[in-house]
């Protein structure tokens, strides 16, 4: 720890002068907490907005779960809360679909994209790379405010007469294009589209910032192969986002044209509400191609940051280097590239040319290989570790478990022949809720517990964290595991009630069980929310490096300053995973510790072929009668 406090604080002013007006102007409430351009504050803004949206989306899911468990019962409370969306205390079928749609939209985009990437990319990219802030702090601020505006618009749809968008989070036209097809396709859908355009703008501004910061603003010595895996993950995620999100905007703009200006990009041969529409020549399948060209990379946008966070948390808490750092990076790169050529596996039975289906099946199953490599590397990292079960570590292990369970069912769905019978059933619901829903949420929670001290200078209560983890972990499995079997019984998703099919009645008791498990999971989040809010204000004050971690962010002082480091930015001398290195008397060596200070623990590969250093090391070892460890 001693090495961490060696800064010459007298250089602070000199350094600030070089960097323009950092920290010199007077900060008002407005510039500090609202229109902040400091990446740490923006990260907190993203986090808190993300958590709020997460709670909203979770509440929506509980509402529709109640409907599924008790399709024939009346809940007057619902009528009191929702008014005409729940006449006679039962959800309206169209409103049920709205709930499903907005739950999906908020969870995928607002929580797991903005809440996850927005929080941790903003917080960690400058801190772990040794930068004073993002490449463009102003754009960073805009990114948050576009996101906040998008959130407000999305939630505002609950207060309009026709209700929120309700054609599923994938908003397939013609259903989403025709206000006559369902009430949610009226004003609610217009607002959904506007909200998403703003959201994508936010996401792009964030992404461009992350990429340029990673490429240009690393501190001295921080070459790409010395970056922590978190940064690799955020970097590649941002690239995926930049390349795929514009396609969604293109698709959305065409849909807006179809809805409002009478074009026929997605519409053809439609007779609805007693009237034949003039649109001819469009194709609903075009939307699906455009949507999934974003939609599939999107699941990796959600998952990769979670995997990056997990890599960091597991290495730190197992007190071991992450196993196969290079393999981890290459598998991330593999996933990044492959994620762009697998979108067709969402469309095997949509009328797409079957030959194309065969091609997409091949690329889809290839993407399982880098995923498998990552899983095995996590397991190898845990092997013979010395595992500290902080709440962050528990959630990281939970992520690995979900990643395995959900990933394996992907092998079924990626197979076009098997997908015929599984497409749009509960099997799909189970699959993606485990592999990207639960896994990514666990990655996010892991990150929150791990970097809470860095964000707020306080510690969260560990015991409440344990309680939160175990309840959430167990309830997630109880909720999603039985859904596989419903899917295998051919029960389609997005069904308002199972009452119309006699064969589905056997799942009614399972539905009740799932709903109560979901309620347990939701209640467990109270432990987290309480812990989070309480700890911000009254938590135990943290020390500088509470988890004894090697990365740069823990070399900054606990008190936040604009510019992150007082004085010079530290230079990086080694990779980020020197935990429990043989020959070292501490079990972690910070990235800013030069090799010359750790002569007893240096290994041949540390020198990266630098002959001068190798010679010095050999001389030292001769003097100290030590064999160079192979």
């Amino acid at each position, binding site marked *: 720890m001693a090495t961490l406090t060696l800064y010459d604080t007298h250089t602070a002013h000199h350094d600030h002068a070089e960097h323009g007006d950092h920290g010199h102007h007077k900060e008002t409430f407005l510039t500090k907490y609202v229109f902040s351009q400091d990446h740490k504050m923006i990260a907190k803004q993203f986090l808190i907005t993300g958590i709020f949206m997460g709670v909203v989306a979770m509440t929506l899911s509980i509402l529709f779960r109640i409907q599924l468990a008790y399709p024939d019962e009346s809940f007057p*409370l619902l009528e009191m809360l929702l008014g005409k969306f729940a006449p006679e205390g039962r959800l309206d079928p169209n409103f049920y679909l709205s709930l499903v749609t907005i739950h999906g939209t908020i969870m995928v985009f607002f929580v797991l994209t903005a809440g996850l990437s927005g929080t941790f990319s903003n917080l960690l990219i400058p801190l772990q790379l040794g930068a004073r802030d993002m490449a463009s702090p102003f754009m960073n601020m805009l990114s948050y405010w576009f996101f906040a505006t998008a959130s407000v618009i999305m939630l505002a749809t609950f207060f309009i007469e026709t209700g929120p968008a309700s054609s599923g989070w994938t908003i397939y036209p013609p259903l989403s294009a025709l206000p006559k097809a369902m009430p949610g396709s009226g004003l609610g859908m217009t607002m959904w589209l506007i909200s998403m355009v703003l959201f994508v703008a936010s996401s792009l501004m964030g992404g461009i910032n992350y990429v340029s910061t990673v490429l240009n603003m690393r501190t001295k010595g921080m070459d790409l192969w010395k970056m922590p895996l978190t940064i690799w993950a955020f970097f590649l995620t941002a690239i995926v986002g930049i390349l795929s999100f514009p396609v969604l905007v293109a698709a959305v703009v065409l849909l807006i044209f179809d809805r409002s200006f009478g074009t026929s990009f997605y519409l053809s*041969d439609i007779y609805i509400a007693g009237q034949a529409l003039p649109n001819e020549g469009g194709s609903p399948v075009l939307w699906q191609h455009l949507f999934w060209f974003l939609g599939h990379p999107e699941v990796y946008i959600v998952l990769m940051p979670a995997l990056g966070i997990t890599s960091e948390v597991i290495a730190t808490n197992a007190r071991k280097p992450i196993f196969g750092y290079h393999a981890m990076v290459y598998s991330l790169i593999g996933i990044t590239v492959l994620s762009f050529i697998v979108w067709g596996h969402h469309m095997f039975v949509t009328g797409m040319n079957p030959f194309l289906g065969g091609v997409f099946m091949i690329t889809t199953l290839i993407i399982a290989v880098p995923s498998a490599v990552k899983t095995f590397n996590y397991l190898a990292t845990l092997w013979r570790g010395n595992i500290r*079960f902080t709440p962050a570590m528990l959630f990281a292990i939970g992520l690995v478990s979900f990643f*395995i369970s959900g990933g394996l069912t992907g092998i*079924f769905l990626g197979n076009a022949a098997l997908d015929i019978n599984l497409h749009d059933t509960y099997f799909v619901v189970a699959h993606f809720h485990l592999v990207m829903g639960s896994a990514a949420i666990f990655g996010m929670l892991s990150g929150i517990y791990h970097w809470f001290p860095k964000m707020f200078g306080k510690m969260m209560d560990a015991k409440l964290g344990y309680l939160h983890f175990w309840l959430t972990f167990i309830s997630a499995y109880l909720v999603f595991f039985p859904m596989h079997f419903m899917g295998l019984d051919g029960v389609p998703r997005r069904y308002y009630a199972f009452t119309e*099919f006699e064969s589905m009645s056997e799942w009614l008791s399972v539905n009740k069980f799932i709903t109560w498990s979901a309620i347990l999971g939701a209640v467990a989040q109270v432990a987290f929310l309480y812990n989070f809010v309480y700890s911000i204000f009254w938590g135990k004050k943290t020390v500088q490096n509470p988890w004894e971690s090697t990365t740069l962010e823990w070399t900054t002082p606990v008190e936040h300053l604009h510019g992150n480091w007082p004085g010079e930015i530290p230079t990086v001398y080694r990779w980020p995973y020197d935990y429990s290195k043989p020959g070292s008397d501490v079990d972690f060596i910070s990235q800013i510790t030069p090799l010359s200070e750790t002569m007893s623990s240096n290994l041949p590969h540390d020198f990266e072929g630098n002959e001068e250093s190798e010679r010095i090391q050999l001389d030292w070892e001769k003097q100290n009668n030590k064999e160079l460890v192979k």
Partner: protein
Amino acid sequence: MKILKYINIKSAFAFIALISLFVNNLFAQAATTAVATVIDAEEKNAYVPKMVTYYLLLFLLVCIVIALIGKILSVYDLTKKVQGAKEGFSWDKFNGFLFLAFLVVGLYGTYWSYTVQGAQILPESASEHGVKIDEMFNLTLIITTIVFVITHILLFVFSFQYSYSTKKKAYFLPHNNTLEKYWTVIPAIVLTILVLMGFFTWRDITNISPDGIRNAIHVEVTGHQFAWEVRYGGKDNLNGRKNYKLIGGLGGLNSLGLDLSDKKNYDDLTVTEIVLPVNKSVRFNLGSKDVLHSFYMPHFRAQMNCVPGMSTSFQFTPRLTTADMRDKVNDPNFNYYLLCAKICGGSHFNMKFAVKIVSQKEYDKWIVAQKPLVTAAMLKSYQEGLAKKETTVATNKIALNN
């Protein structure tokens, strides 16, 4: 000590809150009994606030219990430290143990799910290609289950075995390229096998020879909000031309938009349930009038979207009659059905259509009893329309000549 004091104040507050809520409730109860003449709706919902209060109280109680347990644990920890034990309660060991327990319970739960809920899934495939799909499913299931069990055993056993101790040091193992190679190549090989199997099965299902298509029974299924319309090809086994702009024409009778200038339409049959002979290939030509629907017959492992403006199809051969299946699943009320699997609006959950597989003999008997889709009334309306058109054309001509 400070913390102790704080907790006491908190629990005191909680108790006050509890008591006040109870009192409030009593008053509320008294109030409802006093005012007996409330209107129906209000009376019906009067218990709601009370119910909510009770649940909130229950939740509060649980929170207090949890807080108390937390308190007791920290006191226990403190006393242990005071007594001079080096370490208090080891939460690392505790969590490691919980992971082990989770593994045991979880594996049992998985086994239970596989056997109990696994028994509730679809019966064996009623179609020929479905048998191949099921075989591949079972193979994939076996492989993935093995991987699932092994990786989870490793994950949770490692978590238990290597939980933190001050006495040991983690083993520094940054990489091992041989291992990496193994777990890149082995999954790659297994996946290649699965991909190839899947690819050929998929091609078999989707690539049907022109002869195969011609010889199949042609059935057209059109989805709309929220029902299915089914027509058989009739004697020529071909469905006549349609045009969506004609829907609702012929005095509102033309629900599919049949183009009656196409003679192939005249022998097409309308049905109220899909009846098919066993062991004979059937080709479903699919369409939609309004939004996307998905033609899904789970027992036959058959699914294909119905797309407005685009014709899709799915061809398969049923292999078990309804009667066969009733024997197999031991349920005399069993019936096949067609449902919608693509979100299509408010009544998406209610688009059932009956399907029956029978012997060739029964099918032949059934098909002759089916009515033509083009009724006499439709034909009359069509001819009237034609006549009117001719006269307008004629008058136009006269007008032009003048």
